[in-house]
């Protein structure tokens, strides 16, 4: 039964990668990466059962936490063009949100 779940998760990952590669806007990519992250969490959790040793869920737990931070960082970068306090919209002349493709 874990095999079924693994196959489903891998299939979803493939869809996410396809969306990630196709784009078209950067927000599609962020969405796909974020979803890919949660699918990795699930994959690691299920793989533990598949290999008969499910006590390594800490890795999945780390992903669940870090993935969120990564997404927030990406969005802050897009919105303000940087991570500092002085970075604001007028400062972000070269940031990708002026060229969404």
């Amino acid at each position, binding site marked *: 039964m874990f095999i079924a779940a693994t196959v489903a998760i891998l299939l979803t990952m493939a869809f996410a990668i396809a969306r990630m590669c196709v784009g078209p806007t950067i927000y599609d990519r962020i969405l796909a990466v974020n979803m890919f992250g949660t699918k990795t969490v699930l994959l690691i959790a299920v793989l533990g059962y598949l*290999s*008969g*040793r499910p006590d*390594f869920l800490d890795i999945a737990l780390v992903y669940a936490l870090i993935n969120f931070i990564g997404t927030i960082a990406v969005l802050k970068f897009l919105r303000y063009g940087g991570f500092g306090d002085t970075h604001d919209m007028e400062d972000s002349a070269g940031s990708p949100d002026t060229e969404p493709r």
Partner: protein
Amino acid sequence: MTEVMSHFNYLVVVVLMMTGFYIVIAKSNLVKKVVGLNIFQVSVFLLYISMGKIFGGTAPILDDRFTVYSNPLPHVLILTAIVVGVATTALAGALIVRVHEAYGTIEEDEIHRQDGDA
């Protein structure tokens, strides 16, 4: 064909390694070169970890239920290499930032051109 299947991991490692290598030598953008180096680095990690795997073995954390463990030595080497890798990536990033401040570009050939003029 069985030869290929039994060495599949190593072959993919070679493909990834060459992809990273190609980015490093063919692309002139410095940020992309760093990403290429990262790909190369991950492929080396995979090579090491693949060599340490034993079929039927389990993760090298002792437990009474298991007797066969995968080789822990590559894990130790790669574990530290990953953290060192991110530190060197940061150093490369800092250098790129300084290069951009000095030359106004992060394309390698433009930097060479500016140096040639000076």
